[in-house]
């Protein structure tokens, strides 16, 4: 069997499968063996579905033999354990869903199945996607493949690490305040959070419904374009999902950024940002300029209020979204003699500390006497943040920013200080509040050989522009990658 097939990109694997140079079973075995080797160190997965994966791979090979080869047919993917997968347990890294086996597929899972994709397993995350380090998992943290003493980021840390450690060719995450982009930056992979409503949320366990969005982690921008095309599109089961036609994002990858106006918001270069991070973002900007792009100074004046508004809106929605976990229809149930006890004990045992904290904060923000001062106020600030971006996009085609002020921090470094943890999303959160697409592309490494990611923000449904800019950078910029992660 060919050696490191698991290092292939989706595009490479797709072409080799079509040319019958490799089979999906070979490719899938390679990933499963890679998982067996590195998982003890990384812990990217909650569930590895080896048998199902090999069945899917065999089916994919049969389809390929029959000459029918959709884009993702036979490609081994890892799925954040927040997507409902029919017949495969879906835990959301929570004890309250520890043994939950959905009788249905999330819409995007159904779409990928229809294309013949292979699911090697369900990846680790912060419980209910509430966190920025994947340390809030009922099943233990995920380690950063570049430095096992550091976090992979979160909440989609498992999916980011799985791609960085070549345990799969690509993976799915979700992003509510930076949960795709922050781990992508920390793990040195590509991640895109599409425009809100671009991809169906049906069957994706809800954290904050007006902010949650589905997106892929990949090794290249081209792969992100390939996956996004398969994921995006209208869904009769999701009332918020857009009916706009889905372009072939791969066609947007012209490699040419000449004349493109890239906005750089002053407010994003704050003190407290790691010098290495600022340096590599500036380096990327310089490179863009050399490539013929035009760098324009812009302002997003309400950026500093984004984290505050986010933690009121997201937790308010979460407090209702998580009310269904009551131990009555599914999930473990605490011993209780009365109904009140059944609820409070089941939820006390089932939820971790951060989830409880956010449910409490959200309940407070919505409760009588506080609604206007907190929840409603946050919604108004959300309007101001949206307007900032509308103004900015009159002057530019895409916005370039750092993704996180720092590189991956040490495990345990912020677990005792929720606020510090929240602040690691300071550059990503406003993008969710405005519902915009955000792409993260590796753009450098710090002194500790830790990856740094650049964030490209587009206008609503402006995925093509940021993918084009990201792909052009990826191809022309000589990124000095240290030896492979792990």
């Amino acid at each position, binding site marked *: 069997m060919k050696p490191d097939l698991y290092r292939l990109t989706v595009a490479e694997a797709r072409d080799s499968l079509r040319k019958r140079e490799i089979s999906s079973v070979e490719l899938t075995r390679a990933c499963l063996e890679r998982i067996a080797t590195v998982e003890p160190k990384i812990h990217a997965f909650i569930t590895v579905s080896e048998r199902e994966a090999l069945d899917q791979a065999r089916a994919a090979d049969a389809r390929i033999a029959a000459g029918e080869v959709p884009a993702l047919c036979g490609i081994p993917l890892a799925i954040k354990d927040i997507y409902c997968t029919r017949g495969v347990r879906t835990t959301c890294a929570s004890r309250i869903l520890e043994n*939950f086996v959905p009788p249905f597929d999330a819409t995007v899972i159904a779409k990928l199945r229809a294309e013949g994709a292979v699911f090697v397993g369900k990846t680790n995350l912060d419980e209910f996607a509430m966190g920025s380090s994947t340390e809030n998992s009922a099943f233990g943290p995920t380690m950063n493949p570049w430095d096992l003493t550091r976090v992979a980021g979160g909440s989609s840390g498992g999916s980011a690490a799985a791609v960085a450690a070549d345990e799969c060719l690509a993976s799915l995450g979700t992003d509510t305040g930076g949960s795709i982009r922050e781990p992508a930056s920390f793990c040195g992979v590509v991640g895109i959070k599409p425009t809100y409503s671009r991809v169906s949320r049906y*069957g994706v366990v809800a954290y904050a419904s007006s902010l949650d969005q589905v997106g892929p982690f990949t090794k290249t921008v081209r792969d992100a374009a390939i996956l996004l095309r398969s994921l995006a599109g209208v869904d*009769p089961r999701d009332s*918020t999902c857009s009916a706009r036609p889905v372009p072939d994002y791969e066609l947007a990858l012209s490699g040419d950024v000449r004349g493109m106006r890239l906005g750089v918001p002053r407010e994003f270069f704050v003190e407290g940002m790691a010098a290495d991070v600022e340096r590599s973002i500036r380096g990327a900007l310089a490179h863009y300029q050399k490539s013929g792009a035009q760098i324009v100074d812009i302002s997003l004046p309400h950026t500093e209020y984004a984290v505050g508004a986010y933690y009121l809106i997201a937790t308010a929605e979460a407090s209702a979204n998580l009310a269904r976990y009551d131990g009555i*229809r599914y999930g473990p149930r605490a011993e209780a003699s009365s109904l009140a006890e059944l609820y409070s004990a089941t939820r006390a045992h089932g939820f971790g500390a951060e989830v409880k904290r956010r449910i409490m904060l959200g309940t407070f923000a919505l409760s009588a006497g506080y609604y206007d001062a907190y929840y409603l106020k946050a919604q108004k600030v959300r309007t101001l943040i949206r307007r900032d971006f509308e103004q900015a996009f009159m002057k530019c085609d895409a916005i370039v920013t750092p993704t996180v002020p720092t590189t991956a921090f040490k495990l345990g470094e912020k677990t005792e200080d929720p606020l510090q943890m929240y602040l690691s999303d300071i550059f990503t959160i406003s993008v969710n509040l405005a519902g915009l697409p955000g792409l993260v592309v590796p753009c450098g490494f710090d002194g500790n050989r830790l990856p740094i990611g650049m964030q490209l923000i587009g206008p609503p449904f402006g995925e093509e522009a940021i993918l084009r800019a990201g792909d052009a950078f990826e191809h022309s910029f000589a990124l000095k990658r240290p030896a492979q992660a792990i």
Partner: protein
Amino acid sequence: MTINETYEAVIGLEVHTQLLTRSKIFCGCSASFGAPPNHNVCPVCMAMPGVLPVLNRRVLELGIRAGLAAHCEIAALSIFARKSYFYPDLPKGYQISQYELPLCKGGYIDLPGDGEGARRVRLERIHIEEDAGKNIHAAGGSLVDLNRSGVALLEIVSKPDLRSPDDAGAYLRELRTMLLYLGASDGKMEEGSFRCDANVSVRKRGDEKLGVRTEVKNLNSFRNVEKAIAYEIGRQIEVIESAGRVLQETLLWDADREATRPMRSKEFANDYRYFPEPDLPPLMVSQEMIKEIRASMPELPGERRARYVRDFGLTAYEADVLTAEHEVAEYFEAVLPGLANKKAAANWVMTEVLRAVRESAKPLADSAPAPAETGALLRMVENSTISLNAAKTAFSAMCKSGKGAEATIAELGLAQVSDEGAIGAACDQLIAADPAKVAEYRGGRDKLFGFFMGQVMKAMGGKANPKVITDVLKKKLAG
């Protein structure tokens, strides 16, 4: 009557009715009643993780129908909201309802009747929302059935314009009738598809400001609504009279004890934390949609009453009786084809048909003949194939046997004889048998004619057509 000269009651009703749709409001599960426990459920209506709601078009159409019928303003943009509380029959832990921007605002319902009864009750709002499931209280625990979870509801909230239990009853009946005419509700209070909560307060007559109100729940029949309100008014007056304070609270009507009692579980002393439902974008209603629905509106009770008076020459009273129940009005109209005398048909339905319903204590369909058969019977009266009395005899027989008009008349031999030959023969016999009386008559005792009529009718076994007898007899006696 609980209300005395000193106090007046102020009552507002909150009505919830299930809408007559095939599927639930936000998922493709059947909304039908009576399936085995948890058979009409899916991941959406049992709130599995990650599921999302999608609005049923029919629910919106029926909601707008009701709004138009009640003269409401239909909102071009309305918003769904989450109402949060924990209860086993509420799988998501919140109900998707409407709060700040409902589908229909304002409006009113006119109570029928003249003078005393005639009143206009203003509405606060009408909105659409989802029903909860059912908890069945069993030994050793409670059982949860989610078949009803996610069935479409219409909530109709009146302003506190009602002043007495009778008022409330009249409003509720009119509202129910309206919804039945609209095909929006089946109005079955006992099955719980039509439910009512009452907000009740009392104040000294002439007072401007309202007293403290209580909310009375669990009113599952018209009688209970009226009884409970009457009881609650009395209770509040007593509290005030005995220098106490009425507490703002939610009460349950205990139909067996015929009394209200506070809800035990503090689950309901609640802070619902309403906020806009992020899974449903704002609901937009175009003028075109409203136009279409207005054009397809079924006839409403008021309109039908007017038509009966105008076209059939019925009295207002008759029109009220016939339209009070939708199925009675429908029956009446199905009787009419081919009948010249609409008023006679109306009287027949009001007397004979409604009597049959009363006596059988069953729904109309099971207690009276098919309207077509009743029509056929009345046509025979019109063309004097049978007498009115014969028709009544036949009708009660038809109610029991379920047989058709023709068959019944034949079976009971109720057809009238109009054959001049037979009648003539009977007359000849009589004249021959009693020459003396004939002479008297011919001598000018006209009064005797009635006697001869009776004799002939007797001879004919009462089945002869009186008109024919008169003609023939006149000729014969004239000699």
